[in-house]
């Protein structure tokens, strides 16, 4: 197996494969350290004594011969955003596969868990698919459906994707070792394909005249705390000063106050008027500092759109 991987999902995939009966021929991972992300795939690969190559090699068509020489049967791409040269995708004896944290073809591209929450989906999926040159387009090998909780956040849904995705990788490797011809290959319906890029919805700004469920979903979609959010946190303004909303909850309490108006302030929370209900803001970031909403919002003041 050749593992091309990044992030915590890559670390956990590497740990699972190393503990399985399948043989790791090498790992391709960056050496980038981020003080807020902990151990890297490269760290673990070095600890395990696996050969490690830098991510740039996936763009080198000649590296395909190296893969054939090593005897790679399966290439697994886990959360690496490198575009792999077509010659490398053809090099493994059995095939190349990508673990994608979303249902395909509906959620191709980046940040699928956040988009699913933002769009108000009731369920999600993690997908293991054959790799083709075009991103997230290959035939589906395995897919695990995931129920979404009412209070799902970007982090909790991402954790579910990893927890459900690792067993799919091991299932694929078991089937590949037994009978490669038995690996499923269900073509994607390209007419249903939606691709999400680097863009952040609403340019990262909250809009108070929206329904409460939309406001809260946007905040939850951005919530990866205590880890960094790929979208950042949605913005608003207080007396012209920018702030970010880190935690917000629905109250289901109807509201006819002007959108953005701050109502009751109690405990850590402050209620803010959306189009139809009060939204409870709990945690904000102001001038780079994380604070309880009740510390900075007073009843009667008004939040503007971000």
């Amino acid at each position: 197996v050749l593992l091309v991987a990044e992030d915590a999902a890559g670390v956990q995939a590497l740990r699972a494969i190393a503990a399985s009966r399948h043989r790791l021929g090498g790992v391709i991972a960056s050496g980038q350290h981020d003080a807020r992300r902990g151990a890297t795939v490269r760290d673990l690969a070095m600890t395990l004594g696996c050969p490690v190559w830098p991510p740039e090699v996936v763009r080198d068509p000649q590296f395909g011969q190296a893969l054939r020489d090593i005897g790679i049967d399966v290439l697994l791409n886990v959360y690496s955003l490198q575009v792999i040269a077509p010659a490398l995708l053809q090099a493994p004896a059995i095939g190349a596969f990508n673990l994608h944290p979303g249902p395909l073809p509906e959620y191709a591209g980046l940040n699928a868990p956040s988009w699913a929450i933002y769009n108000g989906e009731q369920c999600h999926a993690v997908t293991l698919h054959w790799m083709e040159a075009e991103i997230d387009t290959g035939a589906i090998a395995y897919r695990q459906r995931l129920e979404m909780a009412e209070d799902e956040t970007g982090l909790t849904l991402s954790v579910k994707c990893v927890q459900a995705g690792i067993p799919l990788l091991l299932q694929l490797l078991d089937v590949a070792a037994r009978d490669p011809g038995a690996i499923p290959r269900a073509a994607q319906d390209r007419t249903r394909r939606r691709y999400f890029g680097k863009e952040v919805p609403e340019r990262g700004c909250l809009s108070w005249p929206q329904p409460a469920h939309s406001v809260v979903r946007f905040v939850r979609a951005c919530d990866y705390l205590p880890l960094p959010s790929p979208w950042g946190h949605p913005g608003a303004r207080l007396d012209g000063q920018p702030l970010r909303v880190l935690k917000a909850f629905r109250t289901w309490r109807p509201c006819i106050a002007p959108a953005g108006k701050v109502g009751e302030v109690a405990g850590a929370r402050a209620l803010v008027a959306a189009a139809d209900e009060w939204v409870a803001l709990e945690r904000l970031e102001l001038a780079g500092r994380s604070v309880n909403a009740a510390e900075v919002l007073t009843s009667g003041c008004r939040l503007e759109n971000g």
Partner: protein
Amino acid sequence: MADDIPDLALQEGIRSFFREGLHATVPAADTDLIATGVLDSLALVELLLQIETQYGVRVSLDKLDFDDFRSVARIARFVARERNSGDGAGAG
């Protein structure tokens, strides 16, 4: 949830979390969990939940520093410090 847990007992509790929760062996209390690939970001999230459940310490996001979690010994010191400060219920 017992008060005044000795440091060694804390260390053993934390090591058992890595052993049973993450299926990762930590050879020594001062093993660097990040450099050896044990503590990735999702494992940290699971560890924080465990610390909150097991020891009643809710880690404030403002205070979160990966360096406090770099080894079993450091985690034990962090938990003991938070418990003793009486400020364990930081806003999450």
